[in-house]
């Protein structure tokens, strides 16, 4: 795992030099999603860059969350959902039946809209993932994983004295950072965030955004957001979804200053949504 990380660090530094040639982490090709008879996503193809933040924006019900959930195959847990198309991650099609979604999800972490810590201690919340994946042997190693994860999520200083306290006793913003730490703990390569700040106040939101910006240096982050300002603040790439279709995808700066499509223009200027 460590060697792997090193390899990624190298590719990253070269990618930083030239943003245009940043390596592609996730390559989605012709994705369709059906909920029963209803088609939620229509033929979306999208390339997501490594070590950057990609924001999905669009009005409610446009399919951005559904598309996000394709990337770690969370849609598999919804019985009526059917996903077609190919998603390549580091060259392997994750939609291939031979790929185990459980293993995939240890590489693609997810943070949900509502903070959902386990009703366990703060320590156990972080340790659960590494424990089931066997990422730490022994108590000392696990302590280190927990500390590192909490540090990366910017929560260590706030909770280091009360690790055995229940995770549900933290404030909303802290809970969400705990969830991010929990996702980080299993050393994922991609972190999916489904409206991570929608249940938080502006101060907690600012902290999370700051955190996302820091995490960008190590992970490929995809964030679904309803807040255009947030997308503009944290992301390098932005994809605009509407009625299950990808309308426009490009550098965030360009999308917000000079959108190609009229509907994108209408949405970001607040004419609908």
């Amino acid at each position, binding site marked *: 795992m460590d060697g792997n990380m090193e390899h990624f660090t190298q590719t990253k530094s070269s990618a930083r030099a030239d943003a245009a040639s940043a390596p592609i982490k996730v390559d989605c090709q012709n994705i369709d999603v059906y909920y029963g008879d209803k088609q939620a996503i229509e033929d979306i193809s999208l390339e997501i860059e490594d070590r950057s933040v990609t924001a999905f924006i669009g009005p409610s019900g446009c399919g951005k969350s559904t598309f996000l959930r394709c990337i770690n195959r*969370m849609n598999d*847990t919804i019985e009526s959902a059917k996903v077609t198309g190919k998603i390549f991650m580091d060259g392997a099609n994750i939609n291939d039946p031979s790929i185990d979604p459980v293993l995939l999800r240890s590489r693609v972490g997810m943070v949900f809209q509502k903070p*959902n810590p*386990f009703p*366990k201690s703060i320590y156990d919340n972080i340790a659960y993932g590494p424990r089931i*994946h066997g990422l730490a042997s022994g108590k000392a190693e696990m302590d280190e994983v927990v500390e590192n994860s909490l540090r990366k999520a910017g929560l260590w200083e706030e909770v280091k004295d009360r690790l055995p306290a229940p995770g549900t006793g933290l404030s909303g913003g802290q809970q969400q950072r705990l969830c991010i730490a929990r*996702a980080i703990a*299993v050393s994922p390569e991609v972190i999916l965030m489904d409206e991570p700040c929608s249940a938080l106040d502006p101060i907690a939101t600012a902290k999370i955004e700051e955190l996302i910006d820091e995490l960008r240096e190590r992970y490929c982050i995809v964030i679904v957001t309803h807040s255009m300002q947030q997308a503009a603040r944290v992301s390098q790439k932005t994809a605009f979804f509407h009625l299950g279709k990808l309308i426009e995808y490009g550098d965030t700066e360009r999308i917000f200053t000079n959108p190609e499509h009229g509907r994108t223009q209408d949405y970001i200027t607040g004419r609908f949504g």
Partner: protein
Amino acid sequence: MSSPTEGPANTGSFVTEEALRRLKKRHGAEARFKLYGQLAIGIAIVALVTLLISIFGQASSAFSRHVLSYDLNIEASYVDPDGTRDPDEIARNVSGFNLMLQDQLADEFLPEDADRNVQRELYGMFTRLAVLPIARATADSPETIGSEQIFNVALADDIDLFLKGGVSARKSIEIGEVAAGEGAIESGVTLTLASQDATEKLGATLTELTRTDVDNAPAVALIKAGNTWYRLEGSEDRNLSLTYLAGPRMLPSNGAATEALVLAQSQENRTVTDRQIAWTEILRAQGRIKSKINTTLFTNSDSTYPELAGTAAAIVGSLLTMLVTALLAIPVGIFAAVYLEEFAPKNKLTSLIEVNINNLAAVPSIVFGLLGAAVFINFMGLPRSVPLVGGLVLGLLVLPTVIIASRAALTAVPPSIRTAALGVGASKTQSVFHHVLPLAAPGIMTGAIIGMARALGETAPLLLIGMVAFVAEVPDGPMDESTVLPVLIYKWSTGAERAWEPQTAAAIIVLLVFLVLMNLIAIILRRRFERRW
């Protein structure tokens, strides 16, 4: 000209007459519903309290029992006629012990030439099996044979009931001293009372206790003069004509104190005869009758004699049955619920299964008894009347309850917990067993305990698989013939003798104690689990 009254009618005040009227109506409705609720709770509490009071009131007499402390001479000729001193032989020789007790009682209380009927009355004060503990004790220490031993001999249930104030309404009065006693013990005694007042008091008490609802049923009086008991046959002025019943065979001596025990029912109408009452009173006056805590209720098994019947076999039977029920219903129920709730595809087959489980919970329990008799006994050839079959039947009976309660508890776990677990790469099974199931555990346990409590109180299905059999011994295991508490209660409640009534109430209390204990355990376990999570 503009005036402040112009403008919309309700400006400045929303307290119009119409609004006040509506408000009053609303308050009225609120008060009414509050009252209905309080009324409902009141009715429930009154019903519960009445039930408990009546059960405890009836059972109170069953928790104590009267015994006669008797100096018994263990004679070898009765208990060990062959002289083997073999404990088994001695323990089995119940009739020998019985005969010994009877002969010694006859020696003390009866003349040589006593009538057979009178003998039977005396022997009837004890049950045949009252000597069982004596036989066992003697078998355990054969060296006591030939010596005198003090034993507590259980009195017959009717005598016990009489001592507890039952059998007949009665009143005991003092009627002064004897002025003169004439006649003969054998043919009839005439006793003259010293005071006229006492005679009138006796007459008044007799009239008072005579029941008005039954014709030709005058009250009777037993007269005690000195230590001898007589029955009052008639009276004329201060002269009472009496018949000898029990005690020293002598005429009332002048100046002896007299007492009258007036009974509302004559001996034809009660289960205890005049003579038995007289003996009982004599023994009581001698201080030889003791009231003891009725441990037989918990140590003995079922018996045809209420004074010897106990719940031990039924308690053990119930425990064994519950064990089998729990082993079947709880794991199967929880796993069925987990599968249906977490893993099963939502299709027509699963919804059909769901509907059927819900319907099964409403199937009358006796139907499960028929099923048990047909499948477990006839088809699988398991023995009748055993806790294994009873437990299996009850397990099937409570299975739907456990499944429904467990599913409800699983549904109540927020889906965010499941997605959180899946999100960090837990498999479906891991998310269920590490997160969902522990969170649902308190609810599942409540359901399981409710189901077990239902099983504990179930009678009908067990009747059909033969658990109503008379079981005189504590079962050794789940394959041993046995009965359970509710069936025992049912059987005892149908007993003809009056003494079964308190016995039944006592058994009900034992069952209730069990239920309360189960609920207590459930609450404690639930608290534990909730604290951990």
